[in-house]
């Protein structure tokens, strides 16, 4: 059990827990305006202060984090549900036309930087949270396809896979029964990394107006609002930023910890 894993799990649980808590409770209603009370520094009444419209920043961050997590999670789901089958299929027949096509396709998608992809989609369909999810989801597909294929290829050379083939099992059958469970560790680790990245991507896209649209609060939207006011009241920029760093660090540490914790078992099985 590593320290990294414990810190990561604790940090992620705390912050994601706070975000989920906003479903049932927030200190204040995050939509209620209170202009006379605007730009209050952190204090007893408002633990993290208020924004330019007098809204409670803690409540906003809780709700905003929930939005950001939702965006990241949906994009992750798109990447996993398409990337993993593609990676398994490519590894099944290494080097044949299917593998070549999938890997070439991956290269093409990789040639579009995430932000450029989001810009293109927004230019065509207009800005929305959905388009941010689709853009990051598409970006995630080749990531998971590569991880899955990379993990699966050496497995196909292993003798237990040959034994399964001698037992007459089809490639697809073997992929699901033997390959998938053995690349699961890699997918869990990559999944936490992409999830963390998703939080940052949502923030960046919403910051430049390509992501979540008003009035829905998100961490990136809060920072966009704060940009012009940061000199007057730094806390309205600092709080959402620290929240992003906290969640991302928590998830990354969790991913690192999981990699260390899951690896020795594989090692043990091998040697």
């Amino acid at each position, binding site marked *: 059990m590593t320290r990294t894993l414990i810190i990561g799990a604790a940090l992620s649980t705390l912050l994601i827990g706070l975000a989920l808590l906003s479903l049932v409770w927030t200190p204040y209603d995050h939509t209620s305006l209170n202009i006379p009370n605007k730009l209050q520094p952190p204090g007893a009444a408002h633990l993290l202060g208020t924004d330019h419209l007098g809204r409670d920043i803690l409540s906003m961050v809780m709700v905003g984090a929930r939005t950001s997590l939702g965006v990241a999670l949906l994009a992750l789901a798109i990447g996993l549900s398409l990337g993993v089958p593609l990676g398994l299929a490519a590894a099944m027949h290494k080097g044949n036309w299917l593998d070549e096509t999938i890997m070439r396709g991956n290269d093409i998608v990789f040639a579009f930087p995430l932000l450029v992809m989001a810009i293109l989609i927004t230019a065509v369909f207009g800005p929305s949270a959905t388009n941010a999810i689709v853009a990051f989801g598409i970006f995630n597909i080749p990531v998971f396809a590569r991880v899955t294929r990379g993990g699966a290829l050496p497995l196909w050379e292993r*003798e237990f896979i*040959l*034994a399964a*083939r*001698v037992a*007459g*099992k089809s490639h697809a059958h073997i992929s699901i029964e033997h390959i998938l469970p*053995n690349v699961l560790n890699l997918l869990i680790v990559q999944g936490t990394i992409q999830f963390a990245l998703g939080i940052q991507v949502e923030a960046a896209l919403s910051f430049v107006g390509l992501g979540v649209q008003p009035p829905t609060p998100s961490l990136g939207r809060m920072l966009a609002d704060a940009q012009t006011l940061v000199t007057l009241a730094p806390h309205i920029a600092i709080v959402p930023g620290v929240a992003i760093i906290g969640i991302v660090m928590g998830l990354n540490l969790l991913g690192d910890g999981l990699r260390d914790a899951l690896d020795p078992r594989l090692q043990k*099985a*091998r040697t």
Partner: protein
Amino acid sequence: MSLLHIDNLSLWIGEADILKSVSLRVNPGEILAITGESGSGKSMTALAIMQLLPRAARTSGSIRLDGAELTTLPERDLCALRGNDIGMIFQEPMTALNPVHSIGRQVAETIRLHAPSADADTQMRDILTRVGLPPDRVPPNRYPHELSGGQRQRVVIAMAIALRPKLLIADEPTTALDVTTQAQILTLLKELVRDFGMGLILITHDLAVVADTADRIAIMRDGEIVETGRTHHMLQTRQHPYTRMLFKASTHQVKLPKPPPPTALLDVQHLQCSYRLPRPRPFARPGQFDAVKDVSFTLMHGERLGLVGESGCGKSTLTRALLGLEAPSRGQILLDGTPVTTQGKANLKIRRRMQVVFQDPFGSFNPRHRVARLITEPFHLLDSPPRGPIRRDVMADALTAVGLKPEDASRYIHEFSGGQRQRLAIARALIIKPDLIIFDEAVSALDVSVRAQILDLIADLCRTHGLTYLFISHDLGVVRSVTDRVLVMQAGEIVEQGQTDAVFTKPQHPYTKKLIAAVPKLPDLRMQPLDGDRI
């Protein structure tokens, strides 16, 4: 005065005792072999002499080279010593060289490091010539990936002996090599010891290599030296029971029952398996590599057939073709008259009559499944696999047949030792009562004592289950013991076949002769009288 003195060397990593009070000595011009099974501490002893131990290791005791204590020497002085006074050769020539530097540069590095001089390049060329890589045939600007395994091992040797060290340590230097290459490398090492007057510590698990090469032998088990002595003397006395066991296991012979009268089971006709090579130039015709060329042979019911050959001879491709994992390019494979593959697809009805046991006891099972699921995987081939209590009985029978217990079915694979896993692999092959089992290097990764047990098991199964098998191995001694007839394969072709005893005693083909001559042999121990040769 001996060259190397190790006194009461003990070594721990964490709680584990790796070496327990090891004492050894090596004289100049002497070859000391350290031998023993895996985990005996042979390699750790070598690393202790080099003072290249893992950081977590702690030692006590003394290691003296020419009277100078190494264990207390500062790192700077050790660096000056390594490569200059002590050279080392490693097991894996494929990974022991830096892939991004030319071989000449790597050899010259040793020279430049310890003896900076203008003619390091000339010296490098001389050394490479000395180890059998003359610059006009193997230019020093070649990279490791352009060389064969044997050539790479020669480069490693050149680096180690470039400055004529007093002591050379060779850690399993020929284990990864083919038997003919092994003979060449051992000869080279012996010559170098003679010419340079070096002391050589040869670490190997192969007792026949030891008997052929060493002046003295130290036998290790679990971090302790159980016996040391002059080779000749040790071969005759073998005082320690463990020594006796090792020698006995190394030459283990099993007794096979008589095969039934010959009726053909497997018929391989003019089999050819080819791979496409990349086009030599764009738009040129792609090349073709024939891994198996025009191979024909017949395997009878109840026959135990051997297949020997060196790496790259096409054994693995042939195995895959026989199992229907790969479609042949030409020719056919018939089992009782029915082809194994039709139109590139494996014929399921035929495939259920064949099973295989692989080499790697650690890689041939999915680490995430229990034994019950692992050994019943071949049931997938049956139209109506047994269920419920019948399934349990079949499983129990298979486990009992290979010397395990029915209760083992609920355990995971990592709870078993290498030998037990190989028993499980045999149980998996037996469970659907196949007509033919292919043993693909099935005992090659095992220690000699475990190997002997598995060979006994195979012989037992021949008696109880009337096995028919094809036993593929690079180890001629093992093949000789467990087969009735043998095929010799070279570069994709069967160059000789015949009754095992006949082929081994009177080989006809030059390649077979070369192969058999290259195998190091233990002298016949029963025959020799005890003479006065004592230490």
